[in-house]
């Protein structure tokens, strides 16, 4: 179910830890409050790191969807 419009999609598949998280942090820093980011990551570490960082940085994790060989994370920039 994709009801949220994605502002920017980051395909970080193939990147090693902490690459996908760094790509997300970089994108969020330059974005606007309310923007929604999609990160595709095949890095196992992302499964724990992206939710941990999103909680710590006080953004909103909208979705984590396991796909074939990677996971899709949807994050809203809150502040």
């Amino acid at each position: 179910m994709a009801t949220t419009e994605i502002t920017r999609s980051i395909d970080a598949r193939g990147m090693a830890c902490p690459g996908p998280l760094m790509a997300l942090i970089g994108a969020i820093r330059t974005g606007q409050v309310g923007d929604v980011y999609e990160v595709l990551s095949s890095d196992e570490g992302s499964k724990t790191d992206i939710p941990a960082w999103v909680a710590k940085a006080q953004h909103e994790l909208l979705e984590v969807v396991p796909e074939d060989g990677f996971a899709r994370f949807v994050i809203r920039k809150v502040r």
Partner: protein
Amino acid sequence: MPDDTFSLILFSGTDDKLHAGAVMAVGAAAMGRPVNIFLQYWALDAFRDDRVHKDHGVAPEAGDDGARAVIDQQATTHWIELFEQAKDIGEVTINACAESMELLGITPEDLHPAVDGVWGVARFFMEAGDGATFI
């Protein structure tokens, strides 16, 4: 308020250990923790501006496959890039150990720009909070 500074002493100068240290620094910085890095001996030597990108080898336990994996990893994302990313996203300082500088005959001008300055050991511990990690 508790001091949540992550203090990291880098001693080893092989690419695998420098990379592992850099990953820890990036993670701590991403989670909002101040990071206090101190460079000694062979890690300091690896931060010489003209030597950063040379092959620094790997720990003895790596074996041939491990060594190849680290060479590929460095070609994709070098450890110096990770330290620069950590500094970019967080409150991260990298200082050289004065004693190691003298031992190895290194001057501040020899060091990569990611290195902020030269500290004595006591200065490092002034910022180290409750503990330090040694790699």
